[in-house]
């Protein structure tokens, strides 16, 4: 039941408890109780709005930045990157060298470069940086219960 509720919420988080209850053939109070419990347990982290930043002209450029770091400083580099509004996602990667991989957005190439040169390169422990500017998106999806259960 919980998974079905989550599946419906992922499709449209604005639908009412009554709508969800009708879909599942249960009372809206049941849906309410289960959703509240999942919120309290942190299973449902938040309800948000997915914005196409390109369409509103705020972010025209997305890049994947690989930051090679001194292992002693990598945690701090990742934390600093996570605080920047230009950075959408931050990951650590295990390879021969320790890498922090981040998804970065900027208005244009100059803004991207200025951000990396002024805010990333000077961070202690940053050894070098490789950045790939993304030119075309073939797929972008959030984790979905539906696709996970099908596979």
């Amino acid at each position, binding site marked *: 039941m919980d998974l079905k509720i989550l599946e419906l919420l992922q499709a449209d988080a604005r639908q009412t408890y009554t709508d969800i209850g009708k879909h599942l053939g249960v009372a809206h109070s049941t849906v309410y109780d289960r959703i509240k419990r999942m919120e309290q347990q942190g299973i449902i982290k938040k309800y948000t709005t997915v914005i196409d930043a390109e369409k509103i002209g705020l972010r025209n450029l997305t890049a994947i930045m690989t930051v090679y770091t001194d292992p002693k400083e990598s945690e701090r580099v990742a934390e600093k990157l996570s605080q920047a509004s230009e950075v959408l996602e931050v990951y650590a990667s295990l390879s021969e060298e320790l890498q922090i991989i981040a998804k970065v957005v900027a208005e244009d*190439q100059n803004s991207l470069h200025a951000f990396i040169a002024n805010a990333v390169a000077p961070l202690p422990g940053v050894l070098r940086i490789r950045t790939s500017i993304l030119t075309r998106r073939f797929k972008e999806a959030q984790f979905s219960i539906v696709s996970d259960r099908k596979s």
Partner: protein
Amino acid sequence: MDKEVASKILRTVPREKAFYFFTSIGNYTGASASSLKEFMERINEVNVKSVEFHLYRGDFEKWMEEVLQDVELAGEVRKLQKFNLAGDSLRNQLYATVSRRLKRLTTQFGLTGI
């Protein structure tokens, strides 16, 4: 110019004001310079693509003017853009320009360069 101004140009700047060498947008080489002397040394070491990238974007002159506050050197570096140099010829010219300036400032005012 007096000794105080020369000392300011030759000082070591904090990490966040250093010059960071990139070869293209977002691709940091790992080399940086916190003083004019260090900058001169890096010119000879970094990938020549980095020298080309920054010179024609006007990054060197901007750093020299805004951070080191050496307007004269910034002007000399800006002039190099007109010669359309590339590769080691550009590196050598830039090195010579910075080296001349460094020598002039250190010998004229009896400073060390750092």
